[in-house]
């Protein structure tokens, strides 16, 4: 455990000196928290808030019966942005994890590191946690800001309850960490197979694509997110995480990594 902690300390000491990493860990979650709050606030005075406003069936399908048409509209628009809280745990750790192995290769620090009595499991656990923990914290803090802000803006009630309903809590507090693990292990896998940190970052970003499909799928009305769908997604993520961890460990061949990089 001490070795894992050492790797985490080392990773954080290194990566948080990089402005780009700090930017993605702090600014992106902050931006994604504040943006829906601005929309929520600016839509508060919209004409759609009048009592007799009519909304398309698709909107109404998403809303609870005690919500007005205006609240329903606000919920529909803001909920599209709430999916972005699932983007944070995917995007934030990529910058850290993608660099984790290939960075050590390029600075030639991997060989002395592998010469220590650290096991592959300990090394990868340290690298994993060093990327996953900031991603989860950033996601949860971001969502916390949004939760407090939305309660203040809406003054509680049906709209706030809808925005903070269990579906979003499951998405942020359960699916979020699972997505972070997926993203990190995919990035570590890529990182241990390439020789250039830029290639690692580019390839690792591919992991965001399924979430974008989810985002655009909901906008296009292909499906409507609900708790069941999110729970199924969590189950799939759990299986994918297990597979990805297995692959990341299997593909981390000390000998190949040491002898094939130039």
């Amino acid at each position, binding site marked *: 455990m*001490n*070795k894992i*902690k*050492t790797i985490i*300390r*080392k990773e954080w*000491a*290194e990566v948080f*000196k990089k402005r780009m990493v700090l930017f993605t860990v702090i600014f992106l979650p902050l931006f994604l928290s504040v943006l829906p709050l601005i929309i929520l606030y600016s839509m508060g005075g919209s004409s759609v808030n009048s009592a007799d406003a009519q909304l398309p069936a698709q909107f109404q399908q998403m809303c609870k019966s005690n919500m007005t048409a205006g609240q329903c509209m606000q919920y529909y628009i803001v909920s599209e942005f709430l999916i972005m809280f699932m983007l944070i745990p995917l995007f934030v750790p990529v910058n850290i994890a993608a660099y984790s192995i290939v960075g050590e290769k390029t*600075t*030639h*620090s*991997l*060989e*002395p*590191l*592998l*010469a*220590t*009595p*650290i*096991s592959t499991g300990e090394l990868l656990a340290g690298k994993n946690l060093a990327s996953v923990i900031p991603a989860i914290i950033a996601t949860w803090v971001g969502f916390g800001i949004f939760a407090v802000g939305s309660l203040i803006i809406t003054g509680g009630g049906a709209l706030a309850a809808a925005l903070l309903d269990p579906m979003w809590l499951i998405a942020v507090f359960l699916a979020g960490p699972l997505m972070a693990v997926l993203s990190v292990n995919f990035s570590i896998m890529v990182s241990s197979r390439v020789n250039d940190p830029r290639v690692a970052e580019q390839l690792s970003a591919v992991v965001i694509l399924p979430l974008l499909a989810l985002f655009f799928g909901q906008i296009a009305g292909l499906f409507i997110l609900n708790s069941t769908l999110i729970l199924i997604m969590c189950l799939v993520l759990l299986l994918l995480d297990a597979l990805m961890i297995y692959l990341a460990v299997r593909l981390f061949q*000390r*000998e190949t990594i*040491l*002898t094939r990089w130039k």
Partner: protein
Amino acid sequence: MIKTENLSKKFNTTVAVDNLNLEVQEGEVFGFLGPNGAGKTTTIRMLTSLIGPTTGTAVVNGYRIGEQDTQIRRTVGILTEAPGMYDNLSAEFNLEIYANLYEVKDPKGQVKKYLSMLGLWDRRQDEAGTFSKGMKQKLAIARALLHEPRILFLDEPTAALDPEASHLVHDFIGELRKEGRTIFLCTHNLDEADRLCDRVGVFKTHLLVVDTPANLRSQLFGRRVVFHLVRSDETIAASIRTLPFVREVKVIDNKLVVNLDDPETHNPEIIRVLVGAGAEIQFVGELRHSLEDVYLQLVKNA
């Protein structure tokens, strides 16, 4: 301390190390010499359990490679070819990381000990990236010693260092030798090997020869004595050519260069014969072959 048995490594069809049989004793400084691409680093990587052999085996510090890799890594120190420090972390933090990974009991104490010993304590808070090559190399040496390994593998410890920094590293290796540590020194610097090593092995995919530098010189070239005369000619040279222990005589200006197996025994007889032949001897000295001559001869013949 280190014993290899038919140790071999292939990368696809390329043979990097071929049937290496070698024994290094405890407390010995062993020089591992060879041209670029000879397989020296691959050998070090196998002996430090970084990579596995294709065939053969080795026992390092009582542990067998491939079977007790963690124990080997725990008990040997390695200075890799590139220092590989974390450039944006302080020198002290760099070493603390490794002290923890090697499970050193008093990490801070060990870090202080080696930073002080290598003259880096005052710069401990500076980022490693701000260090000169020589300082980085010293930092990497400190890193290799934090867990007090009994065997130390040094891969090109003075490559790209200026003479002053090289001198400091040489002195430090000398200190480690006094402590009785076994040192496996992989180097291109033949003068360094000549000065520091008890024995050297010349290696080019397979081991060409192992012996002390002095024995290698003697075996390959014999020993050469130079007789400086007031005037030298072929008549004088011919007077000693017939002596049974003289292997070869060359006349170079007013000097006679004589190849002998045992100069201490035969020099007085040669001097007598030369004086008898009318030669006036100014002084006598031994002409030493450098280890570089030995190395080049061996590698050329390989």
